[in-house]
């Protein structure tokens, strides 16, 4: 179905449905153009020991005592 064929139907939609259509199209365009950095449903392990301060103290003491 072409856009020309769709337009009369879109024109007759109630206001709330037109807003939903805008939202749907915006989301679809965003998903199509987004780079696949994060995929829905895929698990990403985060291994960074970002708050391992006790371990950091232990390593510093190990270096000092060498």
């Amino acid at each position, binding site marked *: 179905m072409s856009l020309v064929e769709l337009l009369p139907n879109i024109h007759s939609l109630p206001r709330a449905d037109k807003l939903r259509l805008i939202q749907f199209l915006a989301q679809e365009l965003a998903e199509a153009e987004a780079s696949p950095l994060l995929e829905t449903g895929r698990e990403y392990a*985060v291994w960074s*020991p*970002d708050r*391992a301060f006790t371990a*950091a103290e*232990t*390593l510093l003491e190990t270096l000092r005592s060498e």
Partner: protein
Amino acid sequence: MQGQQFPFVEREAERGVASLAPMLPLTLVGARAVAVAGLLDTGAAINVLPYTTGVELGFVWERQTTSVKISGNLSIVDARAVLVSAVVGTFAPVRLAFAWTKVDTVPLILGQINFFLEFDVCFFRSRQHFEIRQAQRTQ
């Protein structure tokens, strides 16, 4: 001290640019020398060494008596403190302390203690490279 540049590298070939990361090639020297690539992780409090790399360096788990308590998302992993010499590019060797983990599911991480005490690093992600200089001690 002159800086040395290294490229960001793809960690997953099929992900291409999306998987680019600052992976630093370096040689670790324990009882044996092992060429590795370490993830430069400014958010990591410590250096982390995967189990197999530690074994390749000549460490024996039972002989490493200093236990390291890692909190956060690595808290389930048992770890021991080990010291190695590290050669980065043409810089003079430095001593690095690692939390040697009992697992291989972690990458080799270069973190604040003590990689970032030994080296200053500038990241140029948009240009896909980073630059390293040996840290200038202020004391």
